[in-house]
């Protein structure tokens, strides 16, 4: 507010001047005009619309109280707070803001603060009938205000799922509830989703997008009127500001072009740099050195017109600027870079300058991913008084109105919105057509990494992993979230293109991470706390697992990973969270990532005589967390070799069109997965649940016949996840029997490969869950019993020679007994407190 002298009473009267209905603005001159006639020194309305630029500069328009909302309860402050775009941006007001058309927007004096319309910008244009519109636009203040108030009072969005609206009654007018919230909380900011405005009144939305400079202050006015009508006793720090966000014209930074200048846009990007706070002068305070007469001069387009003569004592050049009595506002420059996801390959990311004002200052930090809503500006390079030539380039920036962090939510909850990729109707149609095909599952799996030969089941497994299961929340019953992510381990001979498969997946998914077990430490996988050298602030740096939240973390050379690093994975792979307690920061981060790992056998070649555990030497606690464990072995079979050779040779001379075709497939595949992940949430139907139960019972039965257990609840969960993922592949909202069948088949395939007991040839899940097959355990017991019997048969000999005992046992037993087995048997007996082993002698107890 630039005229601190005006009294509250005066303002109150002004409020009454505001027409109750927009209809009253029309043939009669608006009340504001009358008022102007009463008190302005320059009452004549200039013939409109001539040259607004000169009008703006005219000193007549100091009447700030016009149209302004009731200010009774507003705390007095030197600088009025209102929508950020209206103050502190001389940059935004430099004359000749370019717009490619001739349609130049009339700019307000920012010193007029938000709610004042310079009358001279209101002109009647015959083409719009009798209505008065703001010069250069088709915005009629009264109509616009009325429309917006109606929007606030009536807009209901029963389907809203934004978390901002959590706790609000969705069947009541949304924004009225928010106003109520403001009256309680006292934070005078009203965020308005432009999507809501559009669905309510498309024309109002268009005006908001095209003339934000004019429309947003009108909105401010409307809100404040409404608010103080409803809550007349509220005390707010300043007037309520309307902050629109999510302009549907959300753009990629790359697609900004000259047509967007002075329009409201929403772009997404990553903050790369923020400047120090810049105090920006709003009003200069001058004092006469001779008579101490003081005067205020408002900053106009970044310049201060220094008074040459003191009005009081007529001394020339006696006025000096008093800094600490001048009014400043906060400003900050923020550099935003295009997010890496929406960049074309082979180009460098673009950056844009954003200005934040007042309370938006310091809202974002470098590294944040944000959506910015603001007004796009272009400013010509400063004209140099000494030079008549100008650099013909404009500087562009965005005056921020609203920030929305997109990664913040990723750490706290489900972020459906950020994942939501917009699909064109056409695209959705193609995807749905594809989904309707009966062989969609096969088609997709063969489109996956076409350069890698065969391994159909592995590809199918990975495909299901890409789709993932349905997220289930049991936190209310105390079990927390069930993981929806499918984890897969590939193990096998070196050189069986495991790494290539991993690379492919990493390139396919938007939020994929690729690390190698050899090179990563626990810290690199999880998160670490680091001191920022500049700000001395402690910063939490996230590692690969956290970064791939909602994505896939590909870990190559899983077996080379150090023990401590691997232990981190335990929590991530089942609870899907990461707990950190470091340097005073204790937190739990979400890491809902699927793990796709590849491991090589310890002996460099897969030993078919050993179990999976023995081959890759991974703890079974970790292995049991993988839903599917595949072996990628060299099949050593002639027909296979032939097909492989053919496949490889064909890679080298395929025509470009064929390659093109497959590239297209990759894009389709990407969209297909993204679409399914976002929109499809299959649930089990009755038959499917029955089928699952049967499958599980069957699995347990198979084992129990031989004294082995071949399934645990974890396996059932895996089956459910896989079935859900398969339903997603079909774009089906129901998990049906066929999904369960495929899940069962795949699970069996994987088990057959990885959990077959090499000694018996049967599938034995306990290899994976306990690290030892049931037969092995049985044999161990038998040996121990035999040993015990033998010792007992020897009578009362308190001590025996180790070597002799071993030889005796070997002589007695029919099966070959290795030293390892013998030692294990001794240990088992020692555990029973039957004997102790000291050095080379065995003592009975």
């Amino acid at each position, binding site marked *: 507010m630039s005229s601190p002298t005006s009294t509250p009473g005066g303002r109150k009267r002004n409020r009454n001047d505001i027409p109750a209905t927009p209809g009253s603005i029309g043939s009669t001159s608006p009340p504001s005009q009358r008022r102007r006639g009463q008190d302005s020194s320059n009452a004549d309305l200039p013939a409109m619309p001539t*040259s607004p*630029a000169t009008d703006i500069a005219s000193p007549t328009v100091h009447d700030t109280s016009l149209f302004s909302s009731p200010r009774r309860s507003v705390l007095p402050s030197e600088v009025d707070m209102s929508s950020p775009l209206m103050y502190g941006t001389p940059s935004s007001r430099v*004359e*000749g803001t*370019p717009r*490619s058309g*001739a349609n*130049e927007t009339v700019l307000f004096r920012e010193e007029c603060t938000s709610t004042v319309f310079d009358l001279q910008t209101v002109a009647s244009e015959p083409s719009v009938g009798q209505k008065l519109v703001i010069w250069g636009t088709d915005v009629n203040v009264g109509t616009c205000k009325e429309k917006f108030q109606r929007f606030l009072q009536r807009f209901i969005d029963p389907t809203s799922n934004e978390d901002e609206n959590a706790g609000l009654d969705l069947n009541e007018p949304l924004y009225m509830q928010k106003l109520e919230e403001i009256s309680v909380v006292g934070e005078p900011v009203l965020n308005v989703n432009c999507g809501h405005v559009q669905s309510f009144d498309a024309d109002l939305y268009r005006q908001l997008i095209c003339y934000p400079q004019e429309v947003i202050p009108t909105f401010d006015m409307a809100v404040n009127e409404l608010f103080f009508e409803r809550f007349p006793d509220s005390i707010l720090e300043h007037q309520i500001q309307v902050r629109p966000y999510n302009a549907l014209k959300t753009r990629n930074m790359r697609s900004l*072009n*000259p047509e967007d*200048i002075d329009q409201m846009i929403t772009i997404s990007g*990553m903050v*790369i*740099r923020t400047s120090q706070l*810049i105090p*920006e*002068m709003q009003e200069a305070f001058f004092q006469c050195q001779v008579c101490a007469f003081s005067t205020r001069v408002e900053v106009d387009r*970044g*310049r*201060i017109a220094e008074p040459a003569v003191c009005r009081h004592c007529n001394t020339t050049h006696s006025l000096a600027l008093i800094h600490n009595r001048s009014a400043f506002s906060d400003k900050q*420059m923020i*550099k935003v870079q295009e997010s*890496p996801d929406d960049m*074309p*390959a*082979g180009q*460098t*990311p*673009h950056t844009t300058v954003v*200005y934040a004002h007042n309370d938006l200052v310091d809202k974002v930090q*470098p590294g944040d991913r944000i959506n910015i809503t603001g007004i796009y500006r*272009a400013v*010509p390079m*400063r004209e140099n008084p000494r*030079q008549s*030539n*100008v*650099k*013909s*380039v*404009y*500087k562009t920036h965005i005056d921020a109105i609203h920030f929305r962090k997109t990664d913040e939510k990723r750490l706290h909850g489900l972020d459906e919105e950020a994942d939501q990729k917009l699909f064109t109707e056409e695209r959705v149609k193609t995807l749905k057509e594809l989904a309707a095909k009966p062989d969609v599952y096969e088609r997709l799996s063969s489109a996956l990494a*076409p350069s890698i030969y065969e391994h159909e089941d592995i590809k199918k497994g990975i495909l299901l992993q890409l789709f993932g299961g349905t997220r289930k929340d049991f936190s209310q019953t105390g079990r927390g979230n069930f993981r929806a992510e499918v984890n897969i381990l590939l193990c096998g001979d070196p*050189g069986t*293109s495991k790494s*290539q498969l991993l*690379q*492919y997946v990493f*390139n396919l998914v938007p939020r994929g991470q690729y690390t190698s077990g050899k*090179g990563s430490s626990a810290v690199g996988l999880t998160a670490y706390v680091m001191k920022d050298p500049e700000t001395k602030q402690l910063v939490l740096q996230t590692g690969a697992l956290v970064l791939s939240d909602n994505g896939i973390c590909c870990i190559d050379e899983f077996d080379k990973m150090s023990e401590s690093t691997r232990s981190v994975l335990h929590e991530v792979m089942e609870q899907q969270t990461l707990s950190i307690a470091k340097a005073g920061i204790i937190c739990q981060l979400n890491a809902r990532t699927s793990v796709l790992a590849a491991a090589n056998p310890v002996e460099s070649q897969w030993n078919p005589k050993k179990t999976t555990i023995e081959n890759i030497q991974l703890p079974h606690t970790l292995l049991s967390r993988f839903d599917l464990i595949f072996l990628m072995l060299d099949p050593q079979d002639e027909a296979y*070799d*032939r097909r492989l*050779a*053919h496949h490889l*040779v*064909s*890679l*080298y001379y395929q025509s*470009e069109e064929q390659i093109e075709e497959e590239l297209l497939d*990759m894009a389709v595949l990407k969209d297909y997965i993204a679409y399914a992940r976002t929109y499809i949430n299959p649930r089990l139907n009755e038959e499917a649940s029955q089928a699952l139960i049967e499958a599980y019972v069957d699995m347990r039965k198979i084992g129990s016949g031989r004294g082995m257990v071949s399934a645990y609840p974890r396996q059932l969960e895996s089956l459910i996840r896989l079935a859900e993922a398969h339903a997603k592949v079909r774009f089906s909202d129901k998990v049906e029997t066929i999904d369960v069948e495929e899940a069962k088949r795949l699970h069996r395939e994987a088990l057959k490969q990885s959990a077959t007991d090499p000694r018996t040839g049967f599938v034995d899940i306990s290899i994976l869950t306990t690290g030892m097959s049931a037969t092995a355990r049985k044999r161990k017991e038998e040996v121990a019993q035999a040993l015990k019997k033998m010792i007992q048969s020897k009578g009362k000999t308190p001590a025996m020679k180790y070597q002799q005992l071993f030889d005796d046992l070997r002589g007695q037993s029919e099966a070959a007994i290795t030293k390892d087995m013998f030692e294990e048997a001794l240990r088992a007996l020692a555990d029973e407190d039957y004997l102790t082993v000291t050095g080379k002698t065995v003592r009975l107890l």
Partner: protein
Amino acid sequence: MPSSNDWINNPLGVVEEMFVQSNSNPEWEAKVLEYFKGKLKEKQAYSWIPSLNDVPLHYLKPNSLVKFRCLVQDMFDPEFYMGVYETIDPSTKAKVLRFGKYKDVTECGVDLNSRNTVTAERQTFYCVPIPGETLWAFLNHSHTYARSSQARVVPSTSYIPSRQKRSYEEDDEMDTQPQKQREPHTELHANGDSKRQETEAPSGQTTSPSNASSPLDLNFPLPGERGPACLVKVYEDLDSFKLNDMLEVYGILSVNPLLSVLCEEKDPSASLLDPTESMETPEEQRAHDPPASLVPRLHMLHARPLQHNNPLLGVGKLYRNMETRGSQRDVLPLGKFTLNLSGCPPNSSFTESLHQVIQELVPCTYRLSMTLHNMNSLRLVPRKDYVANRLVSGALQLARNTSLVLDETRLEQGQLDASGVQNITALGNLISWQKVDYDFNYHQMEFPCNINVFVTSEGRSLLPSDCQVPLQPQVTPPNLEEYLSTVHKAQLTSQINKFRVYLSVAQTLDYSISDEVTKAVEDDFVDMRKDDPQSVSAEDLHRMLVVARLLSLSLGQTSLSREGWMRAKHIDMLRRTRSQPQTTVNGNEP
């Protein structure tokens, strides 16, 4: 001056004429492009135009048409400029429409409130000469021009002698110091431009506060490179250009001294109220608006993407699109062939000599001496400097088909620090996946590349390679250098030129495998696996197929023959048994 050459000497005049004729019909822009494209199509027109690469800047006429053979090192943000604007004569108040395209600075008296102003968009590319360009390629490029131009468009008479002087100097240098890039100080040019001595700044310097006296970092990818860097203003088809593209840009040279004045006019006291001041840091200012005398501006009229940098191949001859060795199938780079030559004598100039031979044959190459110090201190991977808002180049920012020789014999025992490990990882990624992950601080961005890597090492290289061949010299001359120089002198230039052309042409040939041969290869593979499944894997087949391809191409055959396949198999067998080394140099080249 003959009017027929106006389009070279005064292209802006031509544009102006079309603009005035068009009567503010926006079609004039297309017309201009059409006109210059047509002119450039004329016979030999390419060669009349002076090149920024070999003519010193101050011999070039400002606002004339020049060409520049370059690599797109960085792409700056798009900028809006006044495409069309109106000026008012202060005395007569007469309004004139003008165009701002292809210009940096407007005329006097711009009417900022004019309704006729048209805002347009353009983008600036930071371009550097093609890194690692070998001497013969450079000289041949410039001779093409010098031969045909015959001072037709020479702006200054003193220019030709100095041009020749320079080439003599360089010819001398070639004998004594063939390592062009390694000796930045030897060559003092007649022009003595300060920029000639400016080299890649050591890492970390970019963050130092700018002061007017510190030399401008021209951001060349390779240490010790020289040559003009240039800000190319691009108006059309912004999306068709990619980072690291090799281009021959035809454009209007702008060295308007006003540019430097305008950006130096920074009065610190005035900055408080001017919002544009705080937008740019001094570093950014220096990186994006360097003085025009050091980094000229070039307003692009036409650009020719270069598939190769071999001047001996005629212009336009190789216009068709070609898929060379590094075609990519999903993530698997196909046809890359990294040769590791092991058993090289340590601490000798063996690799240097080898590199000299390669230098004689290919247009672009670079030898990276993998000393511990280099590994720890060099910046291989380009990195985004957010303060200056530019991509700080690294030695792995190379043009396509550049031959990179890694000299691992120089590596000694010692500790690699963090950046050393990163550098080694980057080299490994380059070899395995033909990609470089540029460091954007908050994330990495993958840029595919197409670089032929050649590793010399004492034992087996610590870097991955597709093919390792132990060196077993058949002749061991007592003095290797002397021997090589006699071999070198024995080659006639015309002969070498034929080799050079052959190599470049062979690289661009199409290649196919007939069904019949496919069958034979399959049979062979199955047979080999039958005998000993452990000995041959899919990877081996990949390698043999690549070897077969390179072998066929080196014979000029565009399809694999049975004999070619047998030979490839044989060579691979020989390599395996290590009884005999492969032909060393050409093993890397097709």
